[in-house]
């Protein structure tokens, strides 16, 4: 949140219409995503009740766990869901592309030409997939408690997707409410935006209604069932519990089948509105132009997808129950670096994001009113080219003389140091000394230094490569961090783990 998003919320509240937060969207929207709308049994830990899944809006697969409290039924459910998820993943891994690599780009490496993109209604859906992954990935396919091969396969993939979704910059697994909130501000709070129906009502209200009016109506759980994974408590009391009890007590297979069919119909009624909303949201997001860096980030997603696909083919061991110290540290470092990069890319792709930094005083945009492109200095023995420019801005500047390492997106390798800041009326004059990326001699290559009259935006944001943190090898992890971690080997205990 920031002043600009808060102001957009105020505007939305005053006008009754959702307001755009930026000029572009920052996530990739796949041509053919896989949508999963899950429902779980209240009070239980990941007891799947039903799910609607598929990659075409008009062809959902409905999966119902007839008796979610029974271990075997949960496994049947997982096996059925795997029949939707795994072929979809395999299909995305059919083609590879070649990309140049190495210092001079003369070598070639491969990258997946596509990657699967999963959509769930809300962050609860992501937690659900993580839990389902955890519940199924450690199962064994032979011996006692054997499960069909696709069950742990899907478990590993769902765990991987959930892990990926923690990275700010990934588009592999999307929570619909979060994706929408990145593009639109509504006139309600972020708590209320967590309700997918209410959020979509603001963004695309039915004809003749304001967003505010439509959102109030969308809060009625009877007309708009909750987007899950928890079901509506009243639905539980009136429909689900009686149905499950009746199925338990059914005396014949025929009666049980009839009851199951009726329950499946009722659950479809709960799932369908959310299913439609997710597809509606995907379409709405697709219609927004994508930021320039979106394809780059999707390339990274495809690289990571290929990496894990290879890993499963060559090793295939499931993820450990918990990360060891080494993996946690690397992962945290990755999370931070990718977040910083994502922030910078968004700011460069969308002037509204950059405007947040400008309002905060960490960036400024203005015109070059004076330029000395051939200025040189001689701090030591050698004379150096250090051009000077003066930028006039009206942004509230918080940067001070001496602040260095500022860059302008148009010249990412040229850094600027603030020499002086002068206020005159509402404007501020910032004197900058430039260094780097302007040729070898003592005369700047034409066009390499901002010219008088040009518009520039300086900030500390960077999109260049940043090296990963240095961590000890697995074998030299100090005792303070638990010493060298044991290789995770899934044990019989993992496979036997009790469910009830």
């Amino acid at each position: 949140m920031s002043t600009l998003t808060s102001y957009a919320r105020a505007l939305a509240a005053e006008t009754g219409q959702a307001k755009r937060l930026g000029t572009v969207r920052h996530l990739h929207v796949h041509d053919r995503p896989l949508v999963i709308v899950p429902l779980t049994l209240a009070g239980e830990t990941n007891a799947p009740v039903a799910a609607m899944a598929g990659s075409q809006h008009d062809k959902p697969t409905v999966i119902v766990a007839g008796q979610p409290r029974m271990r075997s039924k949960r496994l049947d459910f997982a096996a059925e869901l795997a029949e939707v998820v795994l072929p979809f993943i395999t299909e995305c891994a059919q083609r590879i592309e070649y990309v140049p690599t190495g210092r001079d780009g003369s070598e070639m490496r491969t990258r997946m030409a596509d990657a699967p993109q999963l959509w769930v209604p809300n962050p609860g859906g992501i937690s659900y997939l993580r839990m389902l992954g955890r519940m199924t990935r450690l199962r064994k396919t032979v011996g006692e408690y054997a499960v069909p091969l696709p069950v742990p396969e899907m478990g590993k993939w769902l765990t991987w997707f959930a892990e990926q979704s923690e990275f700010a910059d990934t588009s592999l697994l999307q929570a619909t409410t979060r994706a929408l909130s990145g593009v639109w501000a509504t006139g309600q709070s972020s708590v209320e935006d967590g309700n997918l129906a209410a959020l979509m009502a603001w963004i695309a209200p039915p004809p003749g209604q304001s967003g505010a009016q439509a959102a109030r109506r969308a809060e009625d759980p009877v007309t708009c069932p909750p987007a899950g994974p928890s079901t509506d408590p009243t639905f539980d009391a009136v429909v689900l519990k009686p149905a499950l009890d009746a199925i338990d007590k059914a005396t014949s297979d025929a009666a049980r089948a009839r009851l199951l069919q009726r329950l499946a119909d009722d659950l479809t009624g709960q799932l369908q509105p959310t299913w439609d909303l997710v597809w509606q949201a995907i379409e709405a997001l697709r219609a927004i132009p994508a930021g320039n860096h979106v394809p780059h980030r999707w390339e990274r997603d495809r690289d990571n997808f290929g990496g894990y696909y290879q890993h499963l083919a060559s090793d295939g061991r499931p993820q450990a129950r918990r990360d060891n110290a080494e993996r946690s540290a690397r992962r945290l470092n990755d999370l931070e670096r990718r977040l910083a990069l994502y922030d910078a890319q968004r700011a460069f792709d969308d002037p509204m994001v950059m405007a947040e930094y400008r309002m905060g005083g960490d960036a400024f945009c203005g015109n070059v009113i004076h330029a000395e492109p051939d200025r040189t200095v001689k701090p030591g023995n050698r004379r150096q080219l250090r051009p000077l420019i003066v930028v006039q801005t009206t942004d509230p500047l918080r940067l001070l003389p001496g602040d260095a390492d500022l860059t302008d997106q148009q010249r990412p390798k040229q850094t600027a140091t603030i020499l002086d800041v002068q206020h005159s009326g509402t404007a501020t004059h910032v004197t900058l000394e430039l260094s780097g990326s302007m040729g070898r001699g003592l005369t700047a290559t034409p066009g390499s230094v901002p010219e008088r009259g040009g518009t520039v935006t300086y900030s500390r944001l960077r999109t260049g490569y940043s090296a990963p943190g240095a961590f000890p090898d697995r074998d030299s992890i100090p005792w303070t961090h638990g010493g060298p971690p044991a290789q995770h080997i899934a044990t019989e205990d993992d496979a036997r783990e009790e469910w009830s």
Partner: protein
Amino acid sequence: MSTQLRLDALRGSGVIAKPHNARTIAALTRNPGCTRRAVMDAAGVDKDKTAAATGHPASIGKLSPLAVARGQGFEARVKSQGGAELLRLLRENLGLPIPQAHYLDLGGDDDSVIGGRYLRSRSALAASADSGPDAGTLFDHPMLRLQIAGVWVYLEPDMVAFRLEDKFYIIEIKSFAIVDGVADPGDVTRAAIQSSVYVLALRNLLADAGHDPNLVADQVILVCPKDFSNQPTAHFVDVRKQLTVLRRQLARMADIDRLLDSLPDGVTFDLAPDAHGLPTRSAADLAHALRSVEARYAPECLSACELALFCRHDAHDAHSTAALGRTVREELGGVDCTSTAVALGTGTLVPTDDLVQAAETLRAAHALRTAILGQLA
């Protein structure tokens, strides 16, 4: 007029005060600045019924029967066979040295007499404090009490207090799972706030009986299902922070007279029920009474207060910025109304002295939106 009479008048004639429990006391700490809630809770007004009578029925408090059944089943399992399973957990998971323990059920057939059960609990727990350091005992169904706004509230913990190594521990049994040593942080926080109510009540009880209240540990023992099973697992949860918050809010409620003084004369939330218990008071009249007590609505109320939808409705009518989130209000420079914020942003309103700085920021925000988004803005 005495405090009690004033509270009775607020609640209405012949209506019995709605008793608090650990959950409602915990909820008090969620929005300490709200006078409406503080007054209604102190008077024991049934906020659920009140909200319904205003035409804004509560959206919270509905529990799925499936979740309730699961919770009860798990608790019964943990407590079964004199808490045998619980003892094993305390030894193995928490490494507590318990050679042997007695199981003492403080519940009984005279449950209707709450005070009696409280006295029984008090004497048993005090006796335990007197005895040797390793007199391990599990107390089931103890009764504690806490004074809320001058009224004694009896707390019936669904859990067990325990004495060992010279400390009493509150044990809280919850049915959310701890998977690979990690539980949902929201669930854990809610459990911690609730347990802190019991910790405070137990400390008061020991102090009443002339013992050091610090005999009660400020860590509670949280018992939850392990992974995807029905097997319990136990973890320590530190509740010192929750205790501080709770004490502060209770002290504030103890000062209820000051809040009552600020109310207009004759205000009451009496629903004037007919013979069938249906309210005869008009919704408009009731709403008028409610509005005479200041509320501080924030979106967090939606999950914590039965009256939230009524207050939200009012907050929207008032174009409240806080209704969009507390941070939104702060980021709009503390401006109370969205209409004011937008008018300052577009420059159609000249700011008063206290809003000059906020207006500058809002104008900048508006200018940036218009310049960058153009048609989209």
